[in-house]
């Protein structure tokens, strides 16, 4: 599903943001990406959702080297990835419903089909009463839930969440993580970046720990199993 091999990332002539990062994620796995603020978690996710290209090493998604992807292929691949951004990235002039419906509309789904799904999902994340609300009128936590709903509405193969519980209380945070678990049970590979280790400790998922822009701990046996699964995916 995801394979990073000695990935190096740097902005311009600045210091290394990611330094020789290697790991792989098996399809259907659930990982927490943990580390202090500024450790490089968001940058790692940005490479994974194809907003950045590494300057060294090899990053591949769904069996494809991201450096070899054409512009159209990048878009096609992004359609298989759901992203919850730390800063939400909602479109300000669109209602909560329209923001969540956006990926489905881009995919060309009929309005009659998508309305029901979007309303149901927004109700599930506790925003059933705020369908027509503009992001500016919602609290930070509510905006975060809209962003999460938008990321999962297409049931992506890979879900990347950057601090998805950063603006909500623990109860809502747990509820959102349960939503990610449900998706994971349906086959979605999930990566949740967070610095809230107390929340992480309540789940029994594997962790990728990033410190000072490098991976510090990663189960090598798991990596080997994931590598094998990845090779199978690439070969199929």
């Amino acid at each position, binding site marked *: 599903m995801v394979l990073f091999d000695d990935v190096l990332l740097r902005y311009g002539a600045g210091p290394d943001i990611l330094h020789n990062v290697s790991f792989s994620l098996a399809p259907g796995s659930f990982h927490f990406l943990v580390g202090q603020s500024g450790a490089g978690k968001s940058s790692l996710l940005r490479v994974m959702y194809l907003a*950045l290209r590494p300057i060294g090493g090899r990053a591949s998604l769904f069996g494809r080297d991201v450096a070899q992807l054409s512009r159209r292929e990048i878009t096609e691949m*992004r359609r298989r990835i759901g992203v919850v951004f730390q800063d939400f990235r909602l479109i300000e*002039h669109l209602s909560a419903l329209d923001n969540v419906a956006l990926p489905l509309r881009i995919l060309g789904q009929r309005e009659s089909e998508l309305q029901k799904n979007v309303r149901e999902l927004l109700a599930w994340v506790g925003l059933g009463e705020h369908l027509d609300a503009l992001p500016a009128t919602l609290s930070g936590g509510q905006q975060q839930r809209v962003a999460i709903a938008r990321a999962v509405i297409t049931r992506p193969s890979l879900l990347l969440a950057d601090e998805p519980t950063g603006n909500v209380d623990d109860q809502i945070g747990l509820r959102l993580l349960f939503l990610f678990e449900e998706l994971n049970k349906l086959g979605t590979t999930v990566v949740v970046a967070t610095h809230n280790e107390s929340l992480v400790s309540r789940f029994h998922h594997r962790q990728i720990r990033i410190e000072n822009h490098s991976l510090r701990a990663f189960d090598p046996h798991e990596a080997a199993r994931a590598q094998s699964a990845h090779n199978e995916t690439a070969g199929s």
Partner: protein
Amino acid sequence: MPRRDLPLERDNAGLFLPAIIGFMVFLAALALAGSMAVDNVLAHWRGAIEAAFTVQLPPVEGESSTAAADRRSRALASLAGVPGIRSAVLLSDTDKARLLEPWLGADAAQLDLPLPDLIAVTLDSSATVDLTRLTTTLQGVSPGAAIDDQGRWRDAIVKGAEAANLALLGLLLLIGLAAALTVVFVARAGLAAHRRVIEILHLVGAHDGYVASQFQRHAFNRGLVGGIVGAGVAAGIFLAAQRWLPGLGSSTLALRPLQWLAVASLPLAGALLAMATARYTVLRSLRRIL
């Protein structure tokens, strides 16, 4: 319903788009209508010239007046037998003097000059006559007979019409170029203003074409509205000029239905140009973004 994920209608630069496209279409409509009107006049003149020619019968030295009259009659008879010739009229001495008056003055009729006889020939509107063959026939009747088909004037008119059309084409191209550059500016301003939203659209899986389609639809709608107003104002001015300015109201200047249709199609042409330019600009610009 078409999607409007980008609030392009709120852009300041976009607000001017209908006005600018409207002004361009206004200029193009005036230029096109004016050119077609001039074309109509030229076609009318050209038709009049092509439907007439003059036969010159030079005087024969030592010929008696009876023999000369007989020669003129035979020339007129030769012309009368040619299919397509509607009339052949021998000009009187007074008519010839009037023709020479600009060069020889009012006393031209009193001067004893060996002037040729002139026969004014008019043709049926669609008739064509083999002038070379007719000249040979006439020379058999009257030595030295010649035909003047006003080719000099006709050529000048044709060249004038061609030059006018070329100038119009150049003007329309310049207007189109100016309109396209305006759309490029507006589209780039829109891209800069909505860069964040476009980035989000990309990240949630939108192709460049999805983004471009919103710009092109906006440019088309705005361009069409502006174009209709511009062409309408131009048509109003042209009709008013035809009605109120002397000479312009003549039937030769008036546009035919198909020519009005060409003017009426300008708003659509302007809108299509705006749409294509917006799409090209956006697609080209987006390729630079990861």
